[in-house]
């Protein structure tokens, strides 16, 4: 794997765009790359990147927004906890407005439920320590970047001997989702723009099997426009060269092996489990559940929640959008019944969601329509 110096200056951005354009001219067929991080989604739209792309290079948004990939059943369990179990539910702000089968956490809060937005998982532990007679549940959602924080919260609660703290774990792993997409027959992906901050934790080398087994180029990038442009230029050049390589354009933060301390606490607290994803179904070993040593911190067991079921809005196409099978404008609800003010699907709710990105930025110049299933 090679590491490349990050381009930051305006001149270097222009050079990357030029490289992208030159490489695109050498392509023998149109290509589609996919980013699998909500922050990449938003940054690419905010920078107007889609309008600068050569016509034969498309950047799709994949299952990288944690709010968007969380299944309806998991959201329903959070709402059930807040609404019916008389607990203090702590969540990152992203989850507040996501609509479950019946309402959202924000609606529950308006109706009197004790739902708190926290900046850090440790804020939830502190709340539990300060209120020993009150059950406090932390909504543990997110990919590998966020998982160490949840593991740390469980370890801290255990150290303090808290009996009133638990987590509802819905953490997911990005590699099984990338595998599922590559094995899918109805979505073609020619390469991945890999998530920089997930890679800070799991390390660059973890993407190597994707490159080798599926012959799919992978480029790890940071989150600013210039970094994304450089990554797309490299992806396109790799396709032209017919080479499936792994490159790290975020080498100032991402190492080969990742953050070993973070990996260690994830491994201590969690173990892989089959998990339900919106749009992808149930994927083998794609999520994390608490190890038996920490089972008493599992809110599902503590409150006897059972397996999540969940009922999705039949008109909502978020599941297709986050797997590249459709774009937001293919959904009849988009910008009609479903808007950021009154969102029906998680991709419109989330500030990192593809639908919200399209709603906010696509009026500048509508990105090319992606042929679903091609």
């Amino acid at each position, binding site marked *: 794997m090679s590491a490349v110096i990050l381009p930051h200056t305006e001149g270097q951005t222009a050079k990357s765009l030029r490289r992208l354009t030159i490489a695109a001219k050498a392509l023998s067929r149109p290509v589609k790359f996919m980013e699998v991080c909500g922050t990449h989604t938003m940054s690419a739209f*905010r920078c107007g990147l889609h309008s600068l792309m050569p016509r034969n290079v498309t950047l799709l948004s994949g299952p990288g927004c944690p709010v968007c990939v969380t299944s309806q059943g998991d959201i329903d369990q959070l709402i059930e906890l807040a609404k019916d179990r008389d607990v203090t539910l702590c969540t990152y702000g992203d989850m507040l407005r996501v609509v479950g089968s019946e309402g959202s956490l924000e609606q529950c809060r308006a109706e009197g439920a004790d739902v708190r937005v926290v900046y850090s998982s440790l804020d939830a532990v502190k709340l539990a320590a300060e209120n020993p007679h009150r059950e406090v549940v932390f909504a543990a959602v997110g990919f590998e*970047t966020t998982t160490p924080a949840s593991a740390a919260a469980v370890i801290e609660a255990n150290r303090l001997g808290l009996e009133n703290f638990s987590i509802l774990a819905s953490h997911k792993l990005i590699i099984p989702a990338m595998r599922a997409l590559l094995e899918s027959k109805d979505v073609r992906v020619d390469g991945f723009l890999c998530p920089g901050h997930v890679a800070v934790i799991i390390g660059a080398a973890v993407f190597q099997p994707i490159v080798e087994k599926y012959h799919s180029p992978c480029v790890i990038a940071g989150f600013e426009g210039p970094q994304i442009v450089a990554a797309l230029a490299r992806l396109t050049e790799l396709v032209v060269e017919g080479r499936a390589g792994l490159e790290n354009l975020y080498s100032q933060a991402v190492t080969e092996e990742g953050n070993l301390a973070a990996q260690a606490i994830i491994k201590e607290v969690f173990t892989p489990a089959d998990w339900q994803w919106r749009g992808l179904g149930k994927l083998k070993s794609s999520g994390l559940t608490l190890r038996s040593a920490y089972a008493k911190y599992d809110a599902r067991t503590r409150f006897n929640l059972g397996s999540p079921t969940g009922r999705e809005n039949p008109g909502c196409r978020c599941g297709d959008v986050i797997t590249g099978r459709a774009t937001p404008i293919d959904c009849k609800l988009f910008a009609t019944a479903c808007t950021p003010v009154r969102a029906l699907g998680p991709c419109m709710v989330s500030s990192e969601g593809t639908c919200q990105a399209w709603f906010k930025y696509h009026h500048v110049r509508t990105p090319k329509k992606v042929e679903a299933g091609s």
Partner: protein
Amino acid sequence: MCLAVPARLIDCRGTKATADLHGNRVEISTMLIPPCKPGDWVLLHAGFAIQTLDEQEAQETWAVIKDLRTTGGKP
């Protein structure tokens, strides 16, 4: 959700620290990174430092964020 931003450490106390986020002071955990000292730059995510950073790289990232602000984007 996976957004992380550069922050400069002001005060370090074991695995806890006070960090400066362009004028905002926040209490963070440094349990995931090697021992650090005031003045060090880290990549901060949801209250946890997840990586140490070179100062020049950190300043360049903030420069890009600032540039996005002045050109109409939100950081």
